[in-house]
């Protein structure tokens, strides 16, 4: 038997349900803690971001209009797929320089799966909790509905790559927003593997797009992009957070930038992580005599 050639994975972007390379042709060298190259990932450009936002915009009417039950089921399906890809996700986490050992990587995958299941459950519950029936003086019913905002950009910190990504992404998707995820180039492999999970979980194309790239390069374009309605970010450097704040003011994006997050704590599972990316709609309805 001749010796087998290695068949190595090409880590690509995930845009509109497809796995393209970056339009720019660039790639990121992913290194382990000793500095040797373990893999190459795609290095997204602003044009990849533009394409991803267009895809997310196209997907929004369908995803936000689908039933809460269906969204919950699809998120739960994604958790099932993550569980099946546990070994590959853990390997992706240990390969990069962010994580330390396989035990820690396994623990991160477990937490990420559990968090996804948690928000899958919220999909058909958040509107009961965050919406309400308002008391009004008159023969009317007055309801407030919580509806998704639109296209939300999720900007992830390098550590912990997978858990932070799921924690920021799941609350955005469960309420019916569509998402463009930007995973930091420092440790992008688990995000690239997660794209395969999304692709096999019945998400319609464009609902969740995943880019791996340089935050310093992409965040300024996220900030000023007029067709992005919200930004959910964590762990940004002071300067980058400032750039983001200045840009989002122009078209008034809903923006949450977390700092100092304890990613394994229950605080990340609060419905208040869903609420920033909702629009409250109030309806008056005549009460029957």
């Amino acid at each position, binding site marked *: 038997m001749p010796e087998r050639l290695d068949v190595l994975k090409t880590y690509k972007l995930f845009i509109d349900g497809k796995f393209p390379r970056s339009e720019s042709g660039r790639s990121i060298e992913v290194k382990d803690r000793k500095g040797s190259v373990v893999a190459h990932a795609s290095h997204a450009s602003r044009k990849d971001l*533009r394409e991803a*936002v267009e895809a997310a*915009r196209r997907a929004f009417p369908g995803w936000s209009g689908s039933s809460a039950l269906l969204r919950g089921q699809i998120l739960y399906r994604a958790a099932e797929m993550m569980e099946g890809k546990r070994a590959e996700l853990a390997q992706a986490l240990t390969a990069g320089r962010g994580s330390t050992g396989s035990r820690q990587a396994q623990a991160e995958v477990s937490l990420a799966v559990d968090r996804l299941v948690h928000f899958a459950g919220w999909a058909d519950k958040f509107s009961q909790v965050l919406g309400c029936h308002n008391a009004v003086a008159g023969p009317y019913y007055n309801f407030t509905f919580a509806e998704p905002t639109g296209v939300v950009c999720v900007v992830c910190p390098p550590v912990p790559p997978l858990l932070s990504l799921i924690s920021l992404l799941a609350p955005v998707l469960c309420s019916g927003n569509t998402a463009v995820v930007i995973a930091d180039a420092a440790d992008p492999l688990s995000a690239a593997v997660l794209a395969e999970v999304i692709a096999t979980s019945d998400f319609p194309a464009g609902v969740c797009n995943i880019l791996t790239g340089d935050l310093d390069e992409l965040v300024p*374009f996220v900030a*000023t*992009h*007029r*067709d992005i309605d919200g930004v959910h970010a964590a762990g940004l450097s002071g300067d980058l957070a400032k750039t983001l704040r200045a840009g989002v003011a*122009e*078209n008034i994006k809903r923006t949450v930038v977390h700092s100092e997050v304890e990613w394994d704590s229950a605080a990340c599972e609060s419905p208040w992580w869903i609420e920033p990316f909702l629009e409250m709609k109030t309806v008056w309805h005549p009460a029957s005599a």
Partner: protein
Amino acid sequence: MTGSPPDVMLPRPSVSVDAVMAAQRAAEFTKRSIKKDAKVAGLLMALSMLDLTTLEGKDSVEKVRGLCRKAVRPWDRDEAVLGYRLPSVAAVCVYPALVGTCVEALGPDRRVKIASVATGFPSGQFPLEVRLDDTRRAVADGADEIDMVINRGAFLAGRHDEVADEIREVKRACRREDGSFAHLKVILETGELETLDQVRRASDLAIRAMADVDFETGIPAPGTPDFIKTSTGKVQPAATMPVTLVMLEAIREWHAATGRVVGMKPAGGIRTAKQALHYLVMVNEALGPVRVDGFDGCPWLTPDYFRFGASTLCNDILRQLAWLKSGRYQAGYDFSEA
């Protein structure tokens, strides 16, 4: 009948087309690098060549009024964002019943032309008398341009003389009482013609039939600025680059043989500013060097002889212009729909 019969005949049958080379040459036009100032100039040219179109069963008077406003001034925030006033588009393109609304909305001294589809658009499957009456009414109502569909059933069955006769009849119906002509655009519906050979044959036939009426009326070269047009937009595929290239070649050879100038209108499927630039590159490289008596530059790089039939293209051009100026990607809601 006045005027002399044509002294130049095109070879019959039409030349055949190498489909592989047509596709390859068309693909090459998409590889030019057009950036910055050249890109802005190209986008503004494309904008001024637009036939802003609405051809839906649900079209209403109010929607067409909105379309006319957008045609005259494509973006009301142009001066605020871009720092200059955008050009008007070339024409609005509507169903015959809405021509009167356009006349009213655009006013008497309109720069934006009114194009009306006619002759039983989009199928053309109506008795000839009905199609001719359709045309006469649209012209009488004030249409400057008539977009007619050919009888594809007859063409594909090989009854080419019948198709040519009908085009001549429709063009005669475009004649106003004062003797002037509403400009005619003949829609070949290339998506139904199956092969590029058929596209070329239909192009030659339509160009020739329109010119016959110019000959019998005694209109000298360059002739009435009539057009050949790819598609109704109701059939897929609509305009493609190889098809447009074949039609441009037919136009070029007709000009070389007779000195007459026929316009070109790709329609349907051109949705992005980038595609529009590709088409302009194609026009420039296929017809740019052609010199025509009485014209300064290439007549096909003006709205008089080249048009885009599109509805969503306009907003994509505006989006690109705003991005190039501001460095900010724009949202769909920044631009009006109609």
